[in-house]
């Protein structure tokens, strides 16, 4: 129980810090934000109206708390660019980014875990050099470069898949999958390379443990020793990596969505920056950061459920 309390306390502190950072960064804007949003040649009446609606005439801490209050009430202000509530825009963007992230994560796991286990079992030096080069390459080619390569190959040359645009799940599930395939693949190639490495190291370490010898001495055959004993133990440290990869995947999707013109959070971010839509940007940034923090918290919880040594401490 102590474990959960400590973790929950840590979560609250991190969330508070994250919200402070997000809020703080937008307060160090040089000059008057109202001018920046409306431009220098704006009408003074307009500026004053905007200042009032943004609460710029109130002291800093009051603005922070009213922002946080709004946060809990689901009210993050109104976007200038779209003239819509920020929360509404985020919700619609999140369905796209969410399905992209889920699909990417699925691909990463489906590629990374079996490949990592296979490499640990059959690896040796024979494949390791070739594999480490391959993984380095997929790690080093940025996701958006990878995306452009994939568009070039699958959409331009082979004409198998649509290059850009998004079809919603409700409209056409198969089309939705097809429109998300290339974007998620371009992120997943990098993140699965990370995962493969960790899985391989973890499985190799576990294979050297004493309990594996015990398992063999029971009369279990190699494949069963692997799946009943080794894999379960080696996936525990891998959970941490999955948490870190969630952040990577969300970060990767910011740019990748722009490559494929997907109307998700990443697209909203770049639009909000270029149109100086600060309430929208602030909301988006906070939202993504909170998702990352919550994912890492979830990883800690999963960890404690899977590993009895933590659960019962």
């Amino acid at each position, binding site marked *: 129980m102590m474990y959960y309390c400590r973790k929950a306390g840590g979560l609250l502190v991190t969330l508070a810090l994250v919200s402070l950072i997000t809020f703080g960064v937008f307060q160090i804007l040089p000059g008057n934000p109202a001018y920046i949003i409306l431009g220098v040649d704006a009408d003074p009446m307009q500026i004053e109206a905007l200042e009032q609606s943004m609460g710029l005439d109130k002291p800093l801490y009051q603005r922070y708390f009213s922002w946080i209050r709004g946060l809990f009430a689901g009210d993050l202000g109104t976007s200038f660019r779209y003239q819509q509530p920020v929360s509404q825009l985020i919700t619609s963007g999140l369905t796209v980014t969410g399905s992209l992230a889920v699909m990417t994560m699925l691909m990463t796991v489906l590629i990374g875990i079996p490949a990592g286990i296979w490499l640990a079992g059959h690896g040796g030096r024979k494949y390791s050099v070739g594999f480490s080069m391959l993984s380095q390459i997929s790690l080093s080619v940025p996701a958006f470069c990878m995306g452009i390569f994939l568009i070039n190959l699958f959409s331009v040359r082979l004409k198998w898949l649509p290059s850009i645009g998004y079809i919603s799940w409700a409209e056409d599930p198969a089309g939705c999958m097809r429109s998300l395939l290339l974007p998620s693949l371009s992120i997943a190639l990098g993140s699965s390379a990370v995962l493969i490495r960790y899985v391989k190291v973890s499985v190799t370490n576990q294979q050297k443990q004493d*309990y594996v*010898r015990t398992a063999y001495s029971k009369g*279990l055959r190699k494949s069963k020793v692997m799946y009943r004993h080794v894999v379960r133990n080696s996936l525990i440290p891998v959970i941490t990596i999955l948490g870190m990869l969630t952040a990577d995947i969300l970060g990767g999707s910011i740019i990748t969505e722009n490559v494929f013109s997907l109307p998700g959070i990443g697209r909203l971010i770049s639009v909000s920056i270029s149109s100086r839509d600060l309430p929208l940007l602030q909301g988006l940034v906070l939202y993504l950061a909170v998702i990352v923090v919550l994912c890492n918290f979830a990883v800690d919880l999963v960890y404690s459920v899977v590993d009895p040594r933590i659960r019962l401490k």
Partner: protein
Amino acid sequence: MNSVCKVKNFSLSFVQDKKEYAAVRDVNMEIAPGEIVALIGESGCGKSVTALSMIGLQPENARVSGSIRFGDEELLTLNDREWSFYRGDRISMIFQEPMTALNPLIKVGKQIQENVLLHQKVTGEAAVKQVLEVLKQVGLPDVERIYQSYPHQLSGGQRQRIMIAMAFVNNPDLLIADEPTTALDVTIQAQIMDLMKKMNRERQTAVLLISHDLGVIRDLCSRVYIMYAGRVVESGPVEYVLKEPVHPYTRGLAAAIPSAGRRGRELESIPGTVEPLQRRSKKGCPFAGRCFGAQSLCHEETPHSYSYRGRDVYCHLSPAEIEKRSAERKADHE
């Protein structure tokens, strides 16, 4: 003699960087049903790899030759699938380190149940019953709770009891115990040894006990094999070999244990150390370099065995000669 396991001319070498290093050479050994046999030797003498070969778990870079027969079956030529019928069912093993030998993520009861389900055609419930039964037998209290425990919740002694339960649950014909008490507290060691003895009697399982605790071996075992640097140097019934050792190495070993009869006298030690694997010479008696009676022949030729008062001795010298040289050496010292 009717035997469960017969090791004949068994040799094992490690392959490293395309070179072979002989770790075990020409070992002959036999274990009769229901008896407890000890295998003694210093660390690095090849006793552990010999034992591991008997259950097919020698390291991957080991090359074996000779024969290990289990009943009518040759074990050295078994493949992974064939081994799975023997391991855990007819031959089982207990390891030195109970702290790490159990899977940390699985309840200990389940881990024992896995053995039962692997080798017996019984339902899950019947298997659980068997597990609880064997847990009781190895002297664990509150077996229902132990069944549901994870390894890290148990003490070292309890875990070793779990290992013993796991090894005995399928009534194997042969149990190999590789220094089962070395990692435990002294007070627990005796209990575990008593338990091994009890299980051996109740289940009629032959035990090959690897140890260097000569006191325990004297109490527990009927016969003993003494190994030095990859070879057996002397073997026979415990009461002969350890009470009136013949081979110069065994004499040194026996003199190095404290006993009531020799209270007040200084403990002896054997001068020198075991040569590491890479520097061992291929010919001659393995003990020649440290032996008080070594002559040029000892460095050149590997001695054959001769029988003397119920035991086999691998030495170029006769018992009388050994006795004489030992006495001379003592006189020199004083």
